[in-house]
């Protein structure tokens, strides 16, 4: 009798370990996958920048320092590794690009140049995509981190070789925050 009880308890424990382990691995893969989504967009962004610099170079010859700042920020971003480094380098690149675009406003021939407009649109879009992919990444990474740090999954975190994933922190305070939404259908928000 007691052997049966023992076996049942053992089976329950083994099943739980398997389930929890697989759950952790699935989450880990989701984190990796979400990061890849960001990475794809970052690569695209890095590829677009030399085109942009070449296009505007002729017209903006005396704004050399701004162009150089964009190029060096881009090179730093390309060689950045790890979430924290990448986040910082990309943030700097965004700022350098912002200054460049602010300057192009002063050049009518650039403002009406189809090529520049198209590159600007592509860069805006990649930036937005990075932003939205970052939300997804942070959500998944937070789930993963919470899971491996809470009891009882905590017990098998070592077995699954789970280590906390780094979040992509936003340093820019002016970044848009999540709006508070009211999903109730009947009353208007106060």
């Amino acid at each position, binding site marked *: 009798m007691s052997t049966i009880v023992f076996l049942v308890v053992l089976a329950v424990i083994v099943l739980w370990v398997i389930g929890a382990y697989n759950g952790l691995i699935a989450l880990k893969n989701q984190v990796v996958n979400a990061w890849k*989504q960001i990475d794809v967009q970052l690569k695209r962004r890095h590829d677009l920048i030399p085109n942009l610099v070449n296009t505007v170079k002729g017209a903006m010859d005396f704004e050399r320092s701004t162009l150089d700042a964009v190029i060096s920020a881009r090179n730093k971003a390309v060689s950045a590794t790890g979430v924290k480094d990448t986040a910082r380098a990309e943030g700097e690149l965004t700022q350098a690009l912002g200054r460049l675009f602010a300057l192009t406003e002063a050049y009518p021939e650039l403002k009406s140049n*189809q090529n520049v*407009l*198209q590159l600007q*649109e*592509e860069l*805006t*879009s990649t930036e*937005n*995509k990075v932003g*939205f*992919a970052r*939300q*997804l990444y942070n959500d998944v990474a937070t789930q993963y981190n919470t899971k491996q740090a809470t009891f009882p999954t905590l017990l098998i975190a070592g077995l699954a070789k789970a280590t906390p994933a780094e979040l992509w922190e936003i340093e820019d*305070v*002016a970044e*848009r*925050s*999540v*709006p*508070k*939404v*009211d*999903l109730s*259908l009947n009353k*208007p*928000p*106060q």
Partner: protein
Amino acid sequence: MSEDANLFAQQEANRRRSNWLVVGFIIFFAWVGFGGDLAFALLTADASPGGYRHVIPFMGLVSTVTAGGICWYAWRHGPERVLWSTGAWEIVEPASPEQRQLVNVVEEMAIASGVPKPRIWVVPDEDPNAFATGRDAASASIAVTEGLLAALSRDELQGVVAHEMAHVRNLDVRLMTLLAGMVGAIALMSDGMGRTLRFGGRGGSRLGGRGGGGKGGGNPLALVVLALWLLTLIVAPVVSRILAMAVSRKREFLADATAAQFTRNPMALAAALEKLSAASAPTRSITHGAAHLCIVDPSPGLLSSREGFLADVLASHPPLRQRIIRLEGMGYQQAKRQAVAG
């Protein structure tokens, strides 16, 4: 997590509603058929031995099979038919900067909503409007009018696309597309039946009069069934329309709120709706059957500007003012929190 639970509940509710819609539709057609058979059978039950007796319920069989066929067709081909009825063409390779921007914005929103990128269509119409259709997220399509591309800024376009992606993600598109097919079918059937009845009514009254003369009043049960049956035919198109509208009105508020979550920019969608409401010309390419799919009512001036009970029941969309006010409310909250945080 709670947001996920909410999303899951939404999707589940839409799946359930879609299934019920199909079941209700088939039951309705079965009633139209078998009810007619029953009335006819009761009327002819005590016909003279040589006369016609309605024994085989062939009307019921035909109409039930037809209903099944319509459901299958609406499920398989509904999205294509909706797009086809508006004359939309698909953007395969963007040809202009505007189209490029639209494709980019859709890709952005696909990432934000976690839904695969839908197919993108353009409706050749000057009036700004947009809609989404499809069976599920994988087979979804988003269509915008040329007028929309011309009128909106990038951020506003993003808001509108986010609204449509919200419909896709919540699985509203499945319910709405099925409804579009069925409302159309019921309207057609009712028109056809009405014509048959007006034509056949004369013959029927002669038959009834003859039977009544011989039996002194006929079969009261048959008359009750017949009356009920006629009533259903008359009321069905109105009820199906009210149903479509009621379902769609609630979804619009929810899709607005979800769009604000995706873009984190409720003010842009509010500004877009403002522009859409200012363009008061009707969207001619979008017919009544697909009206409830659109972001704003394609034929304003009929009901959307009126108020009162009738407008409440029949309008496919809540008053735009109300939607804009809710979005602006979210925008102010966001600005306030940012001011506190910064």
